[in-house]
């Protein structure tokens, strides 16, 4: 097997063979390639960066260059069994609308994001007094693509506001899965499975 990023590995492990999956912000297509190769999944992708799309096409993947904030509207309702949004929610113009779109286009959705309430971020802000630059958030405030930082608890709230429900959740620290207890402090990254 490959060395998938830990949040992607969790998502990949949850998707049953033969399903239809849309990976939004698919990057170089690592998750899609894994799903197609090992689970005969019908995977489609959306990616903003043209050179990453070109690399995906060169790998034989079906990827459309597009802006998820705008172009998800092009997909019919429930066109996919799963939609995947990995570490992209916090770059969205309107994460709440994005979540609604994920569950319109897909029966279920996987969402992963860096948790802004991780203790390392909190201490960096509390004691440094500046926007945190951490392992999980390595880019300065002025250059980051992350325009809507989110915490585990914020995410639970927005899911509730959208009338959706959380089917399962996973939390990661130091690239390893950790328990849910104190996850809003302890988790660097979170993965949620959502449905309506």
């Amino acid at each position, binding site marked *: 097997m490959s060395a998938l990023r830990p949040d992607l590995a969790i998502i990949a492990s949850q998707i049953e063979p033969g399903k239809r999956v849309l990976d939004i912000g698919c990057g170089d297509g690592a998750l899609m390639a894994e799903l197609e190769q090992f689970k005969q999944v*019908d995977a*489609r992708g959306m990616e903003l960066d*043209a*050179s990453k*799309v*070109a*690399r*995906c*096409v*060169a*790998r*034989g*993947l*079906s*990827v*459309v*260059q*597009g802006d998820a904030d705008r*172009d998800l509207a*092009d*997909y*019919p309702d429930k*066109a996919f069994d799963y939609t995947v949004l990995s570490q992209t929610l916090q770059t969205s113009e309107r994460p709440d609308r994005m979540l609604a779109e994920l569950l319109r286009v897909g029966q279920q959705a996987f969402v992963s994001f860096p948790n802004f309430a991780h203790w390392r971020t909190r201490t960096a802000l509390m004691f440094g007094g500046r926007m945190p630059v951490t392992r999980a958030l390595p880019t300065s405030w002025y250059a980051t693509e992350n325009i809507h930082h989110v915490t585990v608890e914020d995410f639970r709230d927005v899911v509730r506001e959208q009338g959706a429900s959380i089917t399962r959740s996973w939390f990661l620290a130091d690239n390893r899965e950790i328990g849910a207890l104190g996850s809003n402090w302890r988790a660097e990254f979170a993965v949620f499975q959502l449905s309506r």
Partner: protein
Amino acid sequence: MASVHASNLYKLPEDLPLDSGQALSGAEIAYETYGTLNAGKSNAVLICHALTGDQYVASNHPITGKPGWWERMVGPGKPIDTDRFHVICANVIGSCMGSTGPASMSGDGEPYGMRFPVITIRDMVRGLIALLDGLGIDRLHTVVGGSMGGMQTLSLAANWPDRAERVLVIASTARHSAQNIAFHEVGRQAIMADPSWADGDYYETDAAPDNGLAVARMAAHITYLSEAGLTEKFGRRLQDRESKSFGFDADFQIESYLRYQGSGFTQRFDANSYLYITRAMDYFDLAEEHGGKLANAFAGSTARFCLVSFDTDWLYPTAESRHIVHALNAAGAKVSFVELSAPHGHDSFLLEHAELDQVIEGFLE
């Protein structure tokens, strides 16, 4: 590379039915092939050419002597690798490089001229399908085309969905816009305003409507280039002179360039073919053929699609490709799409572009 030679000629065994309700009898299709067809006939790649293109995709043009129009893309070790693929490129009907068109002899021994029936993009593809039937190729590995070639690939995918596994559409559109039609109409009117056009009946005379055809080409050529590309290449620079002539010579380099392009074009292209092919492009509206809904055109398609647009192409801008992608998504088809950045406008698909090479090579894998 391959030397100058006459193309293969396939005579259609039956009349070619046309969208107009007419039929073309005794039609012939001139084509070139490169690379070897494998035993399973599974490595055939059909390349569809653009408005003024021809079958000489990777061999020297017999009139101009210039290299093939996509030689940088097609050949041994190239992105469309003729060591692996059997590449077929045919001159479309209505054209003038060996396939039956208005300059061809009709049944009465006189050139068709304007008696040639008005054809459509689908009619061109019908001719290509007849050729594939004749060559015994049931299923193409890939059909690929840029510009009008892209319209043919879309038409093939929509109307003969079992004939291609992969469909590659570059810098193209599913319908001609009002602006597209307008530019073509300028060209047609330039030809028809030339006294030598003589209602299309000029083949037996010494004259041909070269002036009109040259003007048509000049107008069209502008649409193939970007404003920034023109500025970079020519700016306001003067042609072989220190100052303006206060006359109507080609003072500016861009004028000289367009005149050269226009007159060069008349050496290798027939004015009536230009009328017929631009008409076919203007009539093209794939959604209209399928109940007004483009997604219907691709319903049930199992082919993989890849669309490529260029950010400076204002003839068939990215929005047109996105429109097709939207329809393919709605139809549940497997589709990839990328807008590539290139400075040269519509013509970018013919020019050096590393990412285009990467996409095409990868899509054919």
